[in-house]
């Protein structure tokens, strides 16, 4: 990539990020939504576990519940960022291409923005999580939520390119909620069906990091493969949107 290419990608990304972060509501919600989700999952399980026989606690521990809330909150927000980026940027991207940008430069700028938002969001989420519960291996949890929410950022792009905003926002929420629920239920069954769910492998990394204090390298690798596949589809979709 030439210096001119890099400059254009950086400029496109900077403009995207500015559009997102200059809205104080977006910034405020980047903090409050993860906070509520971490609290929502953790507090329910904490209260339930206190009031139930011990075997219930074996199904889900309190630290796992807090981490699951962090994952869910980060996934929803990053997914929506990817989704609204593609629905809101079509016209602007096409103008950039008409003005001389190559479609790939525009696409790279958008992808970079999703990664920056995901990184910022996960940093905030981990900070919030640490107020409630200290995972035994925080880096594993960060890696899991980061790669998981990035996958959802790319899924948001794909959903946004095929659906109207109304249907798409509902669909995205539906995909994430079902995935988090099913991925967690599949647990460590090693079921082949797990490979179909975007959240399954990140969930494995997260659970191991929270409960055993270890890093599930194989699951992380599979999460990265999933993320790369999702990235490839997102790039193709963005490229088509910017070119047509």
């Amino acid at each position, binding site marked *: 990539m030439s210096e001119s290419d890099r400059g254009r990608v950086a400029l496109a990304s900077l403009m995207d990020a500015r559009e*997102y972060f200059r*809205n104080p*509501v*977006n910034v405020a*919600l980047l903090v*409050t*939504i993860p906070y*509520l*989700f971490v*609290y*929502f999952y953790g*507090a*329910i399980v904490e*209260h*339930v576990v206190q*009031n*139930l*026989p011990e*075997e*219930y606690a074996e*199904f*889900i521990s309190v630290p796992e519940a807090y981490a699951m809330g962090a994952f869910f909150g980060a996934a*929803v*927000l990053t997914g*929506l*960022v990817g989704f*609204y980026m593609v*629905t*809101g940027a079509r016209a602007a991207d096409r103008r950039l291409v008409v003005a001389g940008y190559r479609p790939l430069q525009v696409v790279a700028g958008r992808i970079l923005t999703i990664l920056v938002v995901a990184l910022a969001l996960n940093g905030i989420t981990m900070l919030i999580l640490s107020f409630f519960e200290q995972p035994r291996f925080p880096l594993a949890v960060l890696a899991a939520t980061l790669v998981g929410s990035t996958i959802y950022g790319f899924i948001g792009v794909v959903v946004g390119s095929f659906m109207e*905003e*109304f*249907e798409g*926002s*509902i*669909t995205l*929420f*539906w995909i994430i*909620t*079902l995935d988090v*629920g*099913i991925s*967690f*239920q599949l647990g460590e069954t090693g079921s082949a069906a797990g490979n179909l769910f975007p959240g399954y492998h990140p969930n494995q990394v997260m659970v191991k990091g929270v409960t055993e204090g270890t890093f599930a390298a194989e699951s992380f690798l599979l999460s990265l493969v999933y993320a790369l596949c999702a990235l490839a589809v997102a790039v193709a979709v963005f490229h088509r949107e910017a070119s047509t």
Partner: protein
Amino acid sequence: MRYGTALRYSLRSYYRSPFLLALLLFLPIAFVALSFAVTPSGLMTLDIGETVVTADVKDIDGLLVAPFTATFLAGVIGLFLMLASVEADRRLVLSGFRPGEVVLARLSTLAIASAYVSLVSTGAVLLHYPVGQPLLYGVSLLLRAYMFGCIGMLIGTYFGKTGGTYLVFLAITIDITALDPRITLGEVPDWATYLPGYHPNQVLLDAALTGLPDTLTHLVLSLDYAAIVTLGVMLVFRRRILP
């Protein structure tokens, strides 16, 4: 007559999209089924209003997922109703419609959509749990969904799509979390009693789990709350569509 025309056109955007209708049907069914399937069993004692009940956590989860789904859908419907229709409604007013007719048509659309998602959610719950008073349970869902639909419309007035969707999501999460009987354990914080979902939630819990000791009071207060948010939407929407 003109109200009927406005309502018909407003509803057309829903029924001409079979995918959307399927989504609004499938989502509550899937969420409720998943909740009953995933949540492990375990008996828990809950203090609900004046009654102490022992119930399975799995059932409580399923009973509470239905309002979450219905309110989320209604909230997003309200949000997009406001975001997508203001320009068209302004043109309708310019062409001779009275603002009141247009506002009423939009609110009726929201009420019908809320009734649809509430009906589906109630049906989905009944497939898994024998709710003692299904009609009351459905009414409580409808009231909560409609109120959050109105709140979605108010949010849509002042915020864009991204911030608006986040805010709807945030408002519903606060409402559901703060009133979850597994968290409050019978001691709902004072501030949470002012939330839109408080009274419908009491009706819902009574209809599903207790012997309806104080349902009428909460039902009337829910209706009052719904009337207040409706008035708020009417005022804001009317001002937005006036030329």
